[in-house]
């Protein structure tokens, strides 16, 4: 099984490059085939493990299907530069890998109607998939940052070429925002690399030394706590991606201007890269840093939730509304992490930390599926009506029942209705964090009310009420258009009703992370 993970990571890019060499006609089929194959492979990993002898994806110290070859390894005097080609999967990354494979496949299916420069489009999407896969599969910090930036240019071009009216502004904003953020992250990686002896950059190494990482740095005569600086530097890039208030303003523009499938990938998996980095690297390798700032992080998370919800409330463009909705929902991830790291209670509240962190990870998955579905819904609507203005519609539920049915399911999942995936994650986060950061949690919980408010208000304005005669000719979603929606709906329902398989595989990884967190607490 060693070969499986590299194949999953690199196959898409190879297929993408190959695509450019093939003639136009079979491009879509090739792309769909490749992505489907990758998705099936990832499922094989997933369920092969479920049924196999192993009972868990293990944790950062015991990744599955790990590959680890020294790539760059040079020592000069006291200076040692070592980069490992280290891939692996554990309970944290595997769900993301599956999600990424699924969403990319659906994205390809969902862009079937695109004909303009289709080869280039699909190639970019495939390269994008490789980049994201790499981020989740990398087990070496330098490798991580390498993959982290691979995704930039494809996304930049995808928004730029196939985007909407303000695509130029959106694409550049996305590019610069992300780059400035990630340059700080790179600085953080330098710092942690040098501070931990500069012998190796593999996750295992950092995870093992995480709790000893203390002390302080000289700064302008004074001195600042090393873990805090590390956290702030590393987190800068992730905060932009998550996106955390106040560095979230790139997201509404990018999501709104990007073509449907790309918005799906942006919201579905690219935001998760930030959350993944936060959990894996910040929390996993510099727990003290997170602890020192956890309450503040919780407050920001609450702001994220309420701010995003508030902004969605007054949007006139469906896509922009959903974009702000994801700002709001990613706040729950932040909240979960903040709770898990909060220094109150010490080890006594371990179970609640566990719940909070597992919830955050689950939220990453569910939000990916739900928001992806929402964007697909808007996309189908947009392809037919060529507008996303909420108030322009009215009563069109009578014209496109299938589309609106699925749309409503997505909305209800997003507002955390039980038996749908969103509820599981949010409930888990809340039950976990309340014990650790009560005040912040209370505010965040209020977001649930607001979410119901703006989503249902949108439904009411666009779909219900008497039919706006302008849309009399509107036709319902075809089966092909509805396929991605239905597929995601199935996932959402399954996770919402029977989350155990997912959670059981996430939990061990979280346990290991929390182990270091609690150790750090002890050091404190």
């Amino acid at each position, binding site marked *: 099984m060693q070969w499986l993970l590299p194949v999953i990571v690199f196959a898409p890019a190879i297929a993408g490059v190959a695509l450019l060499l093939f003639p136009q006609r079979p491009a879509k089929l090739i792309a769909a085939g490749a992505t489907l194959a990758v998705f099936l492979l990832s499922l094989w990993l997933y369920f092969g493990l479920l049924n196999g002898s192993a009972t868990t994806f293990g944790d950062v110290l015991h990744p599955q299907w790990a590959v680890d070859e020294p790539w760059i390894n040079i020592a000069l005097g006291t200076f040692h530069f070592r980069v490992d080609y280290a891939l692996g999967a554990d309970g944290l990354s595997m769900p993301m890998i599956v999600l990424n494979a699924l969403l990319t496949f659906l994205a390809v299916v969902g862009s079937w109607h695109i004909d303009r420069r289709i080869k280039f489009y699909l190639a970019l999407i495939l390269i994008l998939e490789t980049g994201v896969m790499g981020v989740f599969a990398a087990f070496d910090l330098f490798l991580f940052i390498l993959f982290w930036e691979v995704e930039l240019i494809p996304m930049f071009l995808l928004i730029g070429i196939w985007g909407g009216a303000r695509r130029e502004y959106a694409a550049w*904003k996305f590019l610069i925002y992300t780059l400035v953020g990630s340059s700080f992250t790179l600085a953080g990686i330098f710092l942690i690399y040098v501070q931990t002896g500069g012998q190796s950059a593999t996750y295992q190494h950092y995870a093992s030394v995480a709790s000893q990482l203390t002390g302080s740095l000289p700064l302008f005569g004074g001195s600042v706590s090393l873990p805090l600086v590390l956290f702030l530097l590393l987190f800068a890039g992730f905060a932009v991606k998550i996106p955390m208030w*106040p560095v979230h*303003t790139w997201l*509404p523009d990018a999501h709104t201007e990007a073509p449907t499938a790309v918005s799906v990938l942006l919201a579905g998996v690219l935001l998760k890269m930030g959350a993944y980095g936060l959990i894996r690297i910040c929390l996993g390798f510099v727990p003290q840093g997170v602890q020192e700032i956890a309450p503040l992080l919780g407050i920001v998370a609450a702001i994220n939730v309420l*701010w995003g919800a*508030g*902004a969605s409330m*007054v*949007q006139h463009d469906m896509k922009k509304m959903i974009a702000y909705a994801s700002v709001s929902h990613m706040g729950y991830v932040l909240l979960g992490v903040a709770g898990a790291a909060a220094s109150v209670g010490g080890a006594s509240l371990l*179970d*609640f930390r*566990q*719940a909070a962190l*597992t919830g955050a990870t689950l939220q990453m998955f569910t939000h990916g599926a739900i928001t992806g579905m929402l964007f697909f819904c808007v996309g189908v609507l947009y392809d037919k009506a060529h507008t996303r203005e909420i108030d322009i519609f009215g*009563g069109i*539920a*009578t*014209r496109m*029942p*299938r589309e*609106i*049915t699925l749309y*409503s399911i997505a909305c*209800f999942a997003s507002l955390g*209705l*039980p*038996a749908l995936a969103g*509820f599981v994650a949010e*409930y888990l986060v*809340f*039950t976990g964090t*309340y*014990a650790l950061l*009560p005040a912040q*949690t*209370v505010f965040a*919980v*209020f977001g*649930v*009310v607001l979410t*119901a*408010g703006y989503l*249902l*208000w949108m*439904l*009411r304005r666009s*779909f*219900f*009420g*008497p*039919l706006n*005669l302008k849309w*009399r000719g509107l*036709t*319902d979603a075809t089966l092909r258009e509805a396929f991605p929606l239905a597929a995601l709906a199935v996932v959402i329902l399954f996770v919402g009703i*029977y*989350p*155990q398989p997912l*959670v059981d595989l996430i*939990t061990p990884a979280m346990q290991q992370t929390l182990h270091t967190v609690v150790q750090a607490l002890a050091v404190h």
Partner: protein
Amino acid sequence: MTPVDLVWLVPALPLAAMLIIFFGTRMVEIAVQPRPAAVPAPTDHGGHGGHGPADAATTPDTEAGHDATDQTAHTTHGAAAAGGGHGEHGGHTPFWPMLSSIIGVSALLLSFALSLLILWQFLDVNGDVFHTKNLIATGKDIHLYNWFTIGSLNYSIDFRVDTLTVVMLLVVTGVSTLVHLYSIGYMAGDPGYSRFYIELALFTVAMLILVLGANFLVLFIGWELVGLSSYLLVGFWFYHNPPPPGSEVPYPPPAQLKAFVTTRLGDFGFLIGILILFTATGTFNFIELNTKTQAMDKGLLTLAMILVFCGAVGKSAQFPLHVWLPDAMAGPTPVSALIHAATMVAAGVYLVARLFPIYEGVAGPQALAVVGYTGAFTALFAATIALTQNDIKGVLAYSTISQLGYMFAGLAVADTNTVGMYHLFTHAFFKALLFLGSGSVIHAIGAQDMRKMGGLARFMPWTAGTILVATLAISGIPPFSGFWSKDPIITTALEKGNYIIYGLTLFTAFLTAFYMFRLFILTFGGQGSFLGLWGGHDQYRGDAHPRESPRVMTFPLVVLALATILIGLAGFAGFNQGFAWFLNHGVNVDFPVAPALDANTFIGVGAGVLGILLAIAVYGYGLRLNVALASSAVTRPIYRLLYRRYFLDELYLWLIRVVVLGLSNLCALFDAYVIDGIVNGSARAVRGLGNITRRSETGILQNYGAAIFGGAMIILILVFVATGAIGR
């Protein structure tokens, strides 16, 4: 394998029915529909007929075409859609939809039967029949499956069947069955017929999950799901045109939104309460909570219980979150009967009853005090509004709110949850009866404004008779069931020395009787001999041709009426005590849960009688009191205040507009101007810097040379200074 082990079948059967209809008959129905030639232009009937009805909320569909057929189907019954609140009438239901309803009804019948079996098993204390001894005391836990377990925290899907659950099971399945049956007639020919049964089944499932839940997790799931089905059913006729301005009839799309969000507001408190309890005890399970909460900090626990009650306030439409329930009447009348009168709105009461041991035993007295005063106040508050409404369903809605208030008051004042639960039990039947009856009326004349009715008794005797029974019951007149459940609440309040609640409830009893008979007379009677119920001249003020509803609709009415009467008569046989015994796990309670033959009871009944007499005087014999009140300069504002429902809707609307949307706009603008301003500004700054520096590149060779040597000199001096070579 005894019935109680199969309790999961009770929700499973409706679920199965729902899925069968969803993927089965509904699909076929769509498939067999003829394709229309063209999409006809929507037409408007009687001011506000709907057009283009389609089954957005639950129907997957192959072609948009069938909506068009729905449209044509609709236009034939368009006139009946007048009033915007209810659907087509007299249209015949095609085969496949009819099959859907048959599936639904039969599934419900089975669940009801099963519930009865379970009741039997509980009553069979010595285990003669089922070999389960003393189930009544122990109850039964059924573990379905685990969501997941995290450390010691257990998120599991568990059911618990105990006496409280059994009562609720009976109420829910019983009323639901009848409503399913009734709807066959009421919804006949509605294009969304099958969808109606899907959503009705969904509701039943959710409600059953709610009452079966053994822990907060499951209960909350059911809690939210009933909210969903309520949302869907209130908005069942989402495609109707808005009613004309000034009409009291609510409009589905905003109503469904209002219903969901308002209850969500309550759930916010509910969830926080759950979180507090969970954090302190580490469990969701009700039984464990009973013991574990004892270790909790009293103040915190009390706060938690009050927060939990917030959920009940939302769901059971207590003040100040009651505003959604009257609007919820925008749904089809059977829905109003089942969800917004008999079962779902009682969920809040059930919640408090379920947690009664904690409320009453562990938490501080403040918790129950809050419950009681909220309930009592709401009872009066809603009753006053009900006095002035003209929409028949509106009056019933406010009476529901008021009665729910009674239940909470009952829970608060008594030492046991029996009193409140008993009122819930009886209320479920006669309130369902009232709504179904009003539905039958609306179905007959296609209007729901009481000013357009009158003297209908002669056209629809069955409806009139059954509604009379219910009206007497709700007015607390013996021997009808309402008397046996309502009077104990009032008297217990007095015995407990809780004079405020006593006064409120007593006065409310008077008002209730008054407005209920006002409703009855305005609808079925009028002035003249026998209140114009029969004989005399025609009192009908409307323009339709009223006729008695079909059997399938009157039959449930009769059943419910019989239930009301029989429960009432059973009261003389100490049914109250029996109910109490059952609800308290087979232990006899030592305090009265039935009205005794004493002064208090007479006062209670007297209030009711007084109300009835007044109503007869005013509406039967033309005592122009109401007109006087409505016109006199002094009382006119009060009348207006009541008629406009204390302007609460306006207030909330203003709050949302100004506060919520205001803040939201603030966020959006801050993003657009401040944050993006900084972002774009810094980008511009960099370019500006470049623009300045590039000017140094003059193109003149000698400037370049100067730069080289000047630079060298500056560096040299800097180095010298740094090394202290010069200036030392």
